[in-house]
C-alpha cells in the first residue's frame, strides 16, 4: 500500500509546491525558481521509484487508490498506474524539472505566478494520466486548459491573445462535446445495467448499438483529435507554439499533445470498439494525411518554431496510425512514438527557445552556420534533429519503425483479401519518412551550415545549465532507441488489452 501512497504523493506534490510558493515572497525570484525545480526533481525521483516498482507481469491497475467521492453519482477518486499510462507519467515527471530549469532565464515577468501555473499544469496532466474514473479524468482534463491559457496569454509573444483564444476555443469546443458524451455514456450504463459508475473498468462493459457508438466516438474523438491534433483540426497548434514561451511549447509538445492520443487509446477506441472498427479506414486516412500534410507544411515554413510545430503534427500522425492499425507491434510502436516525440520535440523547442532568447528572432533566414559559432549547441541540435527524422539508435526510429511495421503487417492481409486502401495508406506513411528527412535537414542545413550568420552578436554557446538539460533529454532519446525492450515490456500487457478490447467485441451491426 505504500506505493499507492507514493502515487498520490507524486500527483499532489505540485499542489504542495504551489502552497510552498505562496510562502516565498514574490521578490526573491531565485528562491522561487529553485523551490519549483527541487519539488519537480523530487516528483521525478518518486516517479522513477514507481516505475521501477511497476510490475510488468501484472495486468490491470497497480498502486490503486479508490476513495468514494460523490457516492450518489457513483463517483470515486480512483487513480492508478497501468501499462497505458506508466510511460506517459514518467515522461511528464521527467520533463517537469527540465521545463522549470529551461525557464530560469527566459521568464522574468510575474515569476511566482508563472511557476505556480507550471505546477498547476503538471498536476492536471498527471491527474489526467492516472485518473481511472471518467469524472476525475474530465475534471483534470478541463483543468489543464486554464494554466496553458494563462501561460500563453501572459508570457507569450506578440500575437499571444489571438493564439491563446484560438487554443482555448478549439479545446473548449471539444471538451463540451466530450462532456455531453460522458453524460450520455454514464446514463446509458445506468439504464442498461442499473449501475451508476464513472469508472473506466465499468464503462468498458457498456454495450451500445453501433449508431450510438458512432455518435459518442465522434464526440470523444473530436475532442481528442483537436488535442492530438489531427488534420484538419490542427491550425491552433502552430499559432499556440509560435506565441507560447519556451516552457509552454515544451509542455504543449512534450505532454499535452499526447493527451489526445492517450485519450484515443484509453477511452475513445476501447469504449466504442465497433464504431472504431467501422471508422478505422477513416481514422487511418486522417492519420496518414496528418503525416504527409504536416511534413509538407514543415517544408515551407520560415519560422523555426512553426517547422517543429508542423513536424509534431506529422509525428503524432504516426501515433494514430500505430493505434488504429490494431496490431500489437503497431500499438507498442505508437506508445514509444508518443514518448519519443515528447522527448525530441521538447528538446528541439528548448533549443529554439535558447537561440530565441539570445537573438530575438525566429526567422530561419536570419541564421546560418551556427555549427561554427555554437559548436555545442549544434551537436545537440543535430542529435535531436536526427532523432526526429527517426535515425536508428534514437527513440524516433524505435517508434516509427514499429508503427510502420505494425501498420504494414495489418494492411497486407487486407490487401490480399482485396482491400487496397490500408496498404496504400501504410505505403504513404512510409513516404513520410522521406519527407521527414527532407524538412528537418532543410532546417538543419540553413540553420547550422553555410556561412556563419546571426542576427544579434555576440552569441554565447550553451551554458552548463542548458547543457545539462539537453544532455538529460539526449540520454533518454538514446536509451529509448538502444534498449526499448525495458519500457516495451511494461506496456505490452496494456497494448494487448487495448487490442483485445477493440478487436474482439462483436455485437450485431458491428463492422468487419
Amino acid at each position, binding site marked *: 500500500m505504500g506505493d499507492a501512497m507514493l502515487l498520490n504523493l507524486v500527483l499532489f506534490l505540485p499542489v504542495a509546491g504551489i502552497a510552498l510558493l505562496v510562502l516565498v515572497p514574490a521578490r526573491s525570484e531565485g528562491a522561487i525558481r529553485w523551490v519549483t525545480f527541487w519539488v519537480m526533481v523530487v516528483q521525478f525521483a518518486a516517479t522513477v521509484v514507481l516505475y521501477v516498482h511497476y510490475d510488468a507481469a501484472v495486468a490491470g491497475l497497480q498502486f490503486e487508490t479508490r476513495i468514494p467521492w460523490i457516492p450518489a453519482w457513483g463517483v470515486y477518486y480512483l487513480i492508478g498506474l497501468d501499462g497505458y499510462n506508466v510511460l506517459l507519467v514518467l515522461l511528464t515527471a521527467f520533463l517537469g524539472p527540465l521545463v522549470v530549469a529551461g525557464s530560469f532565464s527566459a521568464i522574468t515577468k510575474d515569476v511566482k505566478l508563472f511557476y505556480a501555473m507550471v505546477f498547476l499544469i503538471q498536476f492536471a496532466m498527471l491527474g489526467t494520466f492516472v485518473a481511472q474514473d471518467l469524472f476525475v479524468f474530465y475534471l483534470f482534463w478541463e483543468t489543464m486548459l486554464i494554466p496553458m491559457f494563462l501561460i500563453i496569454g501572459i508570457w507569450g509573444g506578440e500575437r499571444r491573445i489571438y493564439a491563446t483564444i484560438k487554443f482555448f476555443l478549439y479545446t473548449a469546443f471539444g471538451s463540451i462535446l466530450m462532456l455531453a458524451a460522458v453524460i450520455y455514456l454514464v446514463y446509458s450504463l445506468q439504464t442498461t445495467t442499473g449501475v451508476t459508475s464513472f469508472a473506466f473498468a465499468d464503462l468498458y462493459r457498456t454495450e451500445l448499438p453501433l449508431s450510438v457508438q458512432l455518435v459518442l466516438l465522434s464526440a470523444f474523438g473530436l475532442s481528442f483529435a483537436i488535442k492530438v491534433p489531427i488534420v484538419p483540426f490542427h491550425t491552433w497548434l502552430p499559432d499556440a507554439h509560435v506565441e507560447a514561451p519556451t516552457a509552454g511549447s515544451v509542455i504543449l509538445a512534450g505532454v499535452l499533445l499526447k493527451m489526445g492520443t492517450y485519450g484515443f487509446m484509453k477511452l475513445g477506441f476501447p469504449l466504442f470498439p465497433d464504431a472504431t472498427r467501422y471508422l478505422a479506414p477513416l481514422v487511418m486516412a486522417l492519420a496518414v494525411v496528418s503525416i504527409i500534410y504536416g511534413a509538407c507544411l514543415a517544408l*515551407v515554413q520560415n519560422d523555426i518554431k512553426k517547422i517543429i510545430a508542423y513536424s509534431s503534427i506529422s509525428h503524432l500522425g504516426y501515433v494514430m496510425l500505430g493505434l488504429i492499425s490494431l496490431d500489437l507491434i503497431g500499438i507498442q510502436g505508437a506508445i514509444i512514438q508518443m514518448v519519443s516525440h515528447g522527448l525530441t520535440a521538447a528538446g528541439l523547442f528548448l533549443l529554439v527557445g535558447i537561440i530565441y532568447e539570445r537573438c530575438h528572432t525566429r526567422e530561419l533566414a536570419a541564421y*546560418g552556420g551556427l555549427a561554427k559559432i555554437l559548436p555545442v549547441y549544434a551537436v545537440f541540435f543535430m542529435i535531436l534533429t536526427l532523432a526526429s527524422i527517426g535515425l536508428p539508435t534514437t527513440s524516433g526510429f524505435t517508434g516509427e519503425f514499429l508503427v510502420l511495421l505494425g501498420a504494414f503487417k495489418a494492411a497486407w492481409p487486407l490487401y490480399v483479401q482485396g482491400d487496397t486502401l490500408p496498404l496504400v495508406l501504410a505505403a504513404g506513411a512510409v513516404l513520410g519518412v522521406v519527407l521527414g528527412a527532407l524538412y528537418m*535537414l532543410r532546417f538543419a542545413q540553413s540553420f547550422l551550415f*553555410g556561412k556563419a550568420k546571426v542576427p544579434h552578436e555576440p552569441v554565447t554557446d550553451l551554458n552548463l545549465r542548458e547543457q545539462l538539460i539537453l544532455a538529460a533529454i539526449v540520454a533518454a532519446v538514446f536509451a529509448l532507441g538502444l534498449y526499448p*525492450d525495458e519500457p516495451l515490456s511494461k506496456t505490452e500487457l496494456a497494448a494487448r488489452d487495448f487490442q483485445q478490447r477493440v478487436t474482439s467485441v462483436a455485437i450485431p451491426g458491428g463492422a468487419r
Partner: protein
Amino acid sequence: MLLTLIVLLPLAGFLANGLLGNRLGKPFVTVVGCGLPIVAFGLAVKSFLDLLAGGGAPIVETAFTWARIDGYAFDIAFWFDRLSAVMVLIVTGVGSLIHVYSTGYMKEDKSYARFFAYLNLFLFFMLLLVLGRSLLVLFVGWEGVGLASYLLIGFWFEEADNARAGKKAFVTNRIGDAGFLLGMFLLYWATGTLEMDRINAAFTGPVAPAVSASLVGILLFIGATGKSAQIPLHVWLPDAMAGPTPVSALIHAATMVTAGVYLVARMSGVYAQAEAASQVVAMVGVATAFFAATIAVVQTDIKKVLAYSTISQLGLMFVALGVGAYSVAIFHVYTHAFFKACLFLGAGSVIHALSGEQDVRRMGGLARKIPVTFVTFVVATAAIAGIPPLAGFFSKDEILWFAFASSRGGAPWLWAVASATALLTSFYMFRLVWLTFLGKSRMEPEVEHHVHESPWSMTGVLAVLAALSAVGGFLSLPHFLEPMLPLPRVPEHLHHFETPLLVGSILIAFAGLAGAAYFFGNGAARATRVRERFGGLHRLLAGKYFIDELYERMLGRPLTWISEHVFLRTGDRMLFDGTLHGLAGLARRTAGVFSRVQTGNLHLYAFLVVAGMAISLAWSFRHG
C-alpha cells in the same frame, strides 16, 4: 564476444574522439582514430581464422534483445560467415589504410578530431551493416552509414554547397530506404522473422512463403539503388565528392556504396527464387554501368570522373547479381575496393600536391613531380581497365562471362553492353592518366611552384593499395564463397565461348588504352576536335543528361509548390483558418446586432423590464 568487440571498437573511437579529441590534441586523435580500426582489423583476421578452423560454419553472437513484442524477439545479433568475413576484412582493412592516409591528408585541418570521429562512426555502422544477422541490424547500419556519409560530405559545412550535397545524399538514400523498409515489412509478414539466414532458408525451403519473391526482391533493390547509386537514384554520388577525398575513397568507393551489392548477395536465397526481380537488377545494373561510363568520358573534375566510374562499376556488380553470379559480384566488390580506393587516394594526393586544384584542365605533366602517386595511379588504372594480370581483369572478366553465359538471365546483348562499358572504362581512365600526369603542364605557375610529393603516410598507403590492386585478383574469391553462394550453371553449348571472350575482354582493355593514347596523347588535340564536332552530345554528357534538372522540375519544385500553395495557402490559411475566422466573425456580427439593445440607459432598461412583465402577465391571464 569477438564480433561484438569488432563492432564496438570504432564506436569507442568515435566517442573518445568526439568527446575528448579537441581537448587531448592531435596525437591522441591519431592513435585512437587509427589504432582502434587496426585492432578491429586484427580481430577480424582472428575471427576469419576461427571461421576457417571451424570449416566455414557461421559464427553467431547475440549481443542483446532490442525489443520483444508478441513473442518475437528483435535480437541484435551478429553473423559471421564467408560472405560477411570478406566484407568485414575489406571494411576494416581498407578502412584502416584510409585512416592512416587521412592522418597525412587532413593534417592541417582544424577539425582533425571531428574528422576521425566521423570516420570511426562510419566504420561502426558499416560493420553493423555487414555483420548483422537480421535485416533490422543491417538497416540500422544502413541508415547509420548514410548519416556518416551525410556528416562527412558536408564536413566543410561553411560552404553551403557541401552541406547541400550532404542533404541530397541523405534524402535520396531515404527514398531507397523507404523501399527497403517495405520489403523488410513484407518479409516479416511472410516469414515471421527478420533474420536473414532464416528468410533465405524459408525461401529455399520446401514450403515457399506466401509472398512473391520478386516483389520483395524489387523492394529491397530499391533500397540498394539508393545506397549503391544506381538509376534512378544515382544523382547523389557525384555531388558527394564535395567531401574530403579520403571520405570519397572509403565511403563513396570502397565500402558504403557496395552495401547494396552486399544486400542482394546476402538475400540471394530470395533473389534465386525471383526471376523477374533478378532481371530488373541486371537491367538497371547494365543501364547504369553504360550510362555512367558515357558521362565519365567528358568530366573534367578528377573526382567526378572517379565518381561516375564508381557508379559504372557498381552497375557491373549488379549485372553479376542479376544473372545469379553473387560471388562474382562480391569478387568485384573486393577488387574494386582496392583499385578504386587507390585511385581516389591518388587523386587526393594530386589535389594535395596542387593545393586543392581538382580540374584536370589545369593539370598535366605531373608524372615526374610526384612519381609515387603517378606509379600507383597507373597501376590502379590498369587494374580497373582490366589489363591482365591485375585484379580488375579477373573480376571483370568473370562478370562479362556470366553476363553472357549464365543460365539465369545471361544474354549476348547484356554482354555486349557490359563490354562497351568496359571499353569506355579503359578509355576514360587512361584519358584521366594522360590529362593529369602526362603531356605538358597546364598549371598556374603559382601552383606549379608548390607541387610536392605527399608525406609517407599517404604514399605508403598508396603503395599498399597498388600492390593489392595488382595481385588481389589471384585470390579466387568466388571459389571461396562457393559453399554459400554457388555460381550459376552455364549451358553446355556455351562453354567453348569462354576462351574467345577472354581474349576479347583483354583486347577491349587495350583498345581503351590505345584510344586514350590516340585522342589525348598529343596535347589532346584530337580530342578537342572531336568535342567541337559533336558539341551537342558533349553538352548532354557534360550536363549528366540533365537528370538533376529533370528531378528538380518534376519533383522538387512541384513538392514545394503544392506545400506552399495548396497546403499552406489554400488549406491552412484559407480553408481551415478561413472557416474558423468566418465563424468567429459571424458570431461577432450577430452579437453586434443584439448588443444595440444595450444602450446603457437605465430608464430604457427599467421600462423594458416593466413592459416584459406586463406582456407575460397578460399572456398568462389569457392562457391561464
